[in-house]
């Protein structure tokens, strides 16, 4: 029997599935997604929309230093959120700092995800000794709090680099440090999903026609285990941004010459006693809003993609 529904356009097709339906009927998800897209978009487009470039010293005037936000007496309209002690526009530094935080977060999650998925699929597909080795390694790593491990990796990374190159490579060291602490979560979830898939008939069929193991893993199993990975990655992004901010706040992360949100909060902390609250307050608020919205989005995704919760 032919359907009576007219054919759907692109947007219609996009909206016509259960995930989209769940999204469109969950206001918190929509609001969170809106804020997250706004934050990430604004941060990634910082060079285009920021009123100033805080990394271009010729745009900074010391005489404009320590100005309060525009709506407070003494503030200037061109510096909406005030300026820091060197005369840098706070709004611009937050946009640029947020960009750096998000880039670090995304890169770290990607690293953790790739590592975790590869090891997880291998572990689940082969089982036996390989599985034991990889999973025990993950267990050991999970017993150590992530941030401590990140500090350790970061410290070793810095010690290895010569002094002149430390600032330049700090961002990569932070990415590796956070990425390496992230992988066990991915590996565990993917391993479980892989073990389920391996016993299914289509994998058996592929084995029967003697496809090589790597092809079965990449072509057949991987696409079917990516759903939970997506959820983990979203929540992982929020955690990675927090981890970066924590490292930077402890002075272990991104150097003040190209500050991330965490570095801005740390530097601003110095001015709390002197009443220049906006130097640390606005970066902190930006961090909270960013992480909270991404987290809400991840939460919703977990519910929407979990068949058992429907």
């Amino acid at each position, binding site marked *: 029997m032919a359907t009576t529904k007219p054919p759907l356009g692109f947007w219609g097709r996009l909206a016509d599935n259960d995930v989209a339906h769940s999204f469109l009927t969950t206001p918190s998800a929509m609001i969170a997604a809106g804020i997250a897209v706004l934050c990430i978009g604004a941060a990634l487009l910082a060079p285009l929309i920021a009123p100033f470039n805080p990394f271009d010293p010729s745009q900074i005037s010391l005489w404009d230093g*320590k100005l309060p936000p525009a709506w407070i007496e003494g503030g200037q309209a061109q510096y909406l959120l005030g300026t820091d002690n060197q005369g840098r526009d706070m709004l611009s530094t937050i946009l640029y700092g947020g960009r750096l935080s998000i880039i670090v977060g995304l890169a770290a999650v990607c690293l953790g995800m790739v590592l975790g998925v590869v090891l997880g699929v291998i572990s689940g597909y082969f089982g036996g000794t390989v599985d034991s080795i990889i999973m025990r390694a993950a267990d050991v790593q999970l017993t150590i709090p992530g941030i401590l491990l990140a500090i350790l990796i970061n410290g070793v990374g810095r010690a290895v680099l010569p002094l002149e190159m430390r600032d330049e490579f700090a961002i990569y060291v932070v990415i590796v440090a956070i990425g390496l602490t992230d992988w066990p979560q991915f590996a565990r979830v993917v391993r479980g999903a892989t073990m389920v898939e391996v016993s299914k008939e289509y994998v058996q069929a592929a084995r029967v026609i003697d496809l090589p193991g790597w092809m079965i893993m990449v072509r057949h199993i991987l696409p079917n285990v990516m759903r939970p990975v997506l959820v983990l990655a979203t929540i992982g992004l929020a955690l990675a941004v927090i981890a970066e901010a924590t490292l930077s706040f402890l002075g272990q992360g991104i150097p003040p010459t190209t500050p991330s949100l965490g570095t801005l909060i740390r530097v601003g902390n110095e001015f709390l006693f002197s009443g220049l609250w906006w130097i640390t307050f606005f970066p902190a608020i930006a961090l909270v809003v960013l992480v909270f919205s991404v987290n809400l989005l991840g939460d919703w995704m977990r519910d929407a993609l979990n068949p058992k919760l429907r």
Partner: protein
Amino acid sequence: MRQSRWLLATAAVFALASAPAFAENVFKWASQGDALTLDPMSQNEGPTNAMNGQLYESLVTRDPQMKLQPELAVSWTGAADGWTFKLREGVKFHDGADFTAEDVKFSIERAQSPSSDFKEQVSGITSVQIIDDHTVKLMTDGPNPILPNQLTSTYILDKDWAEKNNVTTPQDFKAKQETYAVRNANGTGPFKVVSRAPDELTVLARNTAWWGDKLFPGNIDRIEYRPIANAATRVAALLSGEVDFVLDPPLQDLKRIESADGLKVITVAQIRSIFFGMDQGVAELRTSDVKGKNPFADVRVREAMNLAMDKVAIQRVVMEGLSFPTGMITPPGVFGNTPENDKPLPFDPEKAKALLADAGYPNGFTVQLDCPNNRYNNDEKICQAAVAMLAKVGVKVNLEAVSKAQHFPKIQKRTSDFYMLGWGVPTLDSHYVFAYLLADGGSWNATGYNNARVNEITAAIATETDIDKRTAMIEEAWNIVLADKPYVPLHHQVIAWAMSNKVDAPIGADDALRPRFIVMK
């Protein structure tokens, strides 16, 4: 049963640990960086001298008003061929050994050895003659009118102790040498080392056998020094009562501290100038995009660097008003500073650009600025501001801000192109500035500046006794330096100390803490 014994033992330990706190006056203080070494001749650096000045003593010293006072010498008289010092009798080192003329001879010779950072102060002494156990004569090559002024930080060690512990020569700080004297001290001073964990906590206890124990008003029994690098943490420690005294409160927090109950801030103009040095001596800068020649070798470039610096903005915004913009690298109070020469060059970016274009750099050039981040008031923030100011005239500066322990070797090894330095003058005489910073071969002259007449005058004023002639020579040398501009002077510092009301500490223009005068209520 076993458990109760454990409890008893624990209680006893706690009782022991907390017992001394009742009766003692414990002076807990903090500043941003630690003394670099306890070897009193290895690093001529303010906080290091301040720490060592509690453990060791020199022949003469200065009181908070900067007047010379007897310390290990009771009197001194000058002659054409040297100075005779009458030494204090009955003085003992911390380990109980007697202080004699032998120790003075040994210590001065130690300060003259190659690894010493105090060579310039004692270079005028040709030999030390022991007249008797408590009289020495420091022989000089011709008359030396300022010798006692030069000895205020030449600390005296015990000869036998140094020989026993194999520290007869000073630690070579540049080569990261480690010796017994770096962590242990045996002086005659008012305090002894109880424990030392570098960059963490140094505990000193009153030396009750000190000769001045009853002569000075100070009533501190124990000093606990805690370096706290983070400025806000340092202030928080003072506000919470964790420390009684902060030597270098961040300038932006002074109002907050003053408004707090039980805390006060005192200020005084300091004998210390802050400036940038430019290496004009090398053929090619190490960190510049200009190859084959050195932009700083051209006096027009050096003048442009000076004109580009908005010293008043730094004073108002970075220093919260607590500095004096300057034209000289040595402050008022030092003999040779004159109001005419001390006027800062005006802030004139247009002229700076024109001079750079004249010199062949219409688009500027790049260079790295080396800066300490835990030594001077707001040092790193000044450097950040300088980067912005220089960018406006086209000089692209890459800022490298590191701790003073990493920064100072770059200057002494002469591996920096462009650096920040601050210079205090304990002798209160220009000779000290010329010998260290301007004469060829001066151990802190990393500019490569080498002017024959300035070198000649530096040597001459060490022995010239005719005051008028000497003054004229000093004036002449400063005029040459003003024309040649090897440094970019920024400002003279103002010292601010923050402390609890129960502490009464006299502030001195050299920023030195003098615990022998500190009274705790």
